[in-house]
């Protein structure tokens, strides 16, 4: 037996966190910041689904003058080729989000597989996998992506695979450390002792617990993937035939939109990227914060405890806290 390293303060804390883990995701998503984030993501997803219906003009055909400023007919103005920017941004969103979400999904799958194997089995499996992860972590991914994209040639598929296959390291690390603590949980040891197979333990007891964590690192991975896509596109390494937000910004930049003063050729795409990343970040962050029990207590809050004057104790009377009928369903 190791002396339980618990303290007066950590004991009730821990109990509470296990009790509430059931609802960690639900609690997190009820935060105002998470609601804003979710709404942004939902709006973008809807817009890209219905993009063909929403686009006012064609992205291939000229519909107005070169760098025509925004007007009632062309809300976001036109680019250097006389193509409606709103149309470009809507269509670019479809591809950018497809790239972002697919690459993030690849990263999450690889990352959680590596993390689970490493954290669950430990020993040499852990050593080998974590060594590999460490190398990947240290080598600057953007440069590796540039080199791979340059060598393989520009295509959307390559961009997705390159981003996805290089981005999993952060997820792998987080998942590993979480699995390591889950592995030591008494209920996992109990199931192991009654003869539950590794597969069963992982699928039934560990993976479901990772749900919120994977959700958080998934949406955060989307932000990195979208960033990397725009960066690669900006360096001319994206598919020349596909329109993405990154490509829109790159074209506007290389075709002198800035020196012409045609800010509308670059701003809508940039804002779109920023909004999507903001949405994903807010959601991911809210979940991560809800999962982190260490953020719940502060011994150094700005406001300290309050004093209730002696006389007022009578009228406060919270002696037997009884919920009003309307609040009954609130919690048990």
């Amino acid at each position, binding site marked *: 037996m190791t002396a339980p390293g618990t*303290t007066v*303060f*950590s004991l009730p804390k821990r109990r509470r966190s296990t009790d509430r883990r059931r609802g960690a995701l639900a609690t997190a998503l009820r935060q105002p910041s998470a609601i804003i984030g979710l709404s942004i993501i939902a709006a973008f997803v809807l817009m890209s689904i219905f993009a063909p219906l929403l686009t006012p003009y064609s992205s291939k055909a000229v519909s107005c003058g070169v760098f025509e400023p925004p007007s009632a007919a062309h809300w976001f103005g036109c680019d250097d080729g006389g193509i409606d920017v709103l149309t470009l941004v809507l269509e670019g969103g479809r591809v950018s989000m497809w790239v972002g979400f697919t690459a993030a999904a690849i990263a999450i799958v690889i990352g959680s597989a590596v993390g689970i194997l490493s954290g669950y089995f430990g020993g040499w499996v852990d050593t080998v996998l974590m060594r590999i992860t*460490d190398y990947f*972590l*240290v*080598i*600057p*991914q*953007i*440069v*590796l992506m*540039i*080199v*791979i994209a*340059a*060598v*393989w*040639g520009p295509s959307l598929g390559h961009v997705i695979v390159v981003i996805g296959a290089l981005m999993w390291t*952060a997820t792998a690390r987080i998942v590993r450390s979480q699995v390591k603590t889950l592995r030591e949980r008494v209920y996992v040891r109990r199931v192991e002792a009654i003869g539950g197979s590794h597969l069963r333990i992982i699928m039934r007891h560990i993976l479901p617990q990772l749900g919120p964590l994977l959700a958080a690192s998934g949406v955060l991975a989307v*932000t990195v993937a979208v*960033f*990397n896509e*725009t*960066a690669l596109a*900006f*360096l*001319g*390494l994206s598919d020349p035939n596909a329109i993405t937000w*990154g490509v829109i*910004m*790159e074209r*506007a*930049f290389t075709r002198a939109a*800035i*020196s012409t*003063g045609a*800010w509308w050729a*670059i*701003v809508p*795409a*940039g804002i779109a*990227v*920023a*909004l999507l*990343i*903001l949405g994903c*970040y*807010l959601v991911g962050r809210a979940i991560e*914060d809800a999962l*982190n029990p*260490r*953020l*719940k*207590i*502060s*011994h*150094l*809050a*700005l406001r300290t405890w309050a004093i209730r004057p002696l006389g007022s104790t009578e009228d406060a009377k919270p002696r037997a806290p009884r919920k009003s009928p309307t609040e009954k369903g609130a919690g048990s």
Partner: protein
Amino acid sequence: MHRGRYIWRRTVFALVTVFVAVTLNFVLFRVLPGSAVSRMSRVPGASAELKAALERQFGIDKPIWEQYLLYLKGLATGNLGVSFSNRQPVTSNLAEAFMNTLPLVLTGTLLALAIGILLGVLSAVRRGSVFDHTMTNISVMFYAFPTQFLGAMLLIFFAGVLPSAGMMDPFAVALSPGEQFIDRVRHLILPVATLTLTLYAEYLLIMRSSVLETLGEDYVLTARAKGLSRGRIIRSYSVRNAMLPTVTMIALALGTVVSGAILIEVIYSWPGIGRELYQAVLQRDYPMLQGGFLVITITVIAFNYLADLAYAWLDPRVSD
């Protein structure tokens, strides 16, 4: 006591990582199907003699392992080949570019660190206040802007006010040394501002949550029971302990510095290593690309190693 062993292990790790990067560099360019060398015929505008020279340089006719040894030998002597585009040795091209990059990246990163850490601590200890909300919201906004977009916005806003391209005025040769210096600083402002704004947000958020995590620790409660003042507890307890995870996370976020620097150099036509890499990509100048990859990677590994040393210095507990 164990510090020596820890530092030794990190040194070995850094060296091995350099070796991995060097090998990766070889594999990417020579071994993978469809890799650069087998596609040498696609090098734009390559003459027959250049192709022959390249084949000699890479030793394409030889078996892979012999090519690998040749490559390592070249590296050891500082020979990274000759650039396709300007026929200069890659090493000297890169050395010049590297020296140009340093002032930009160092100033930008240090500024971002100072601002991010300071505001991060202040936000954390005023958690929930108006200041905290304002600071975190602004930094989340900057975090969300793609670097190239931020750069483009600054270019538009400061067009005409500040120089927007290059490291110095091409006509500045006639100026006095003092004026030349001022000219250089003026050229630095926009790129450095862009880099700082790109980076500080992440540092602020990292520092803020690291400090917040320490505030719930028992030692902070003990410090309060000791009758210490708020400022003292924040300095010697919270910030001091929060520096540990922050050092690690900032080292892990070095990739952001690299990608930010590359994009900024492209936007502001800064003749640094990122721009060299960009040009190499455009012209499929493989020797330059290879060299650039190596130099950036090794620099990042070196800074990671420095972070490891800083960690050992900050945390008395380091052992294995």
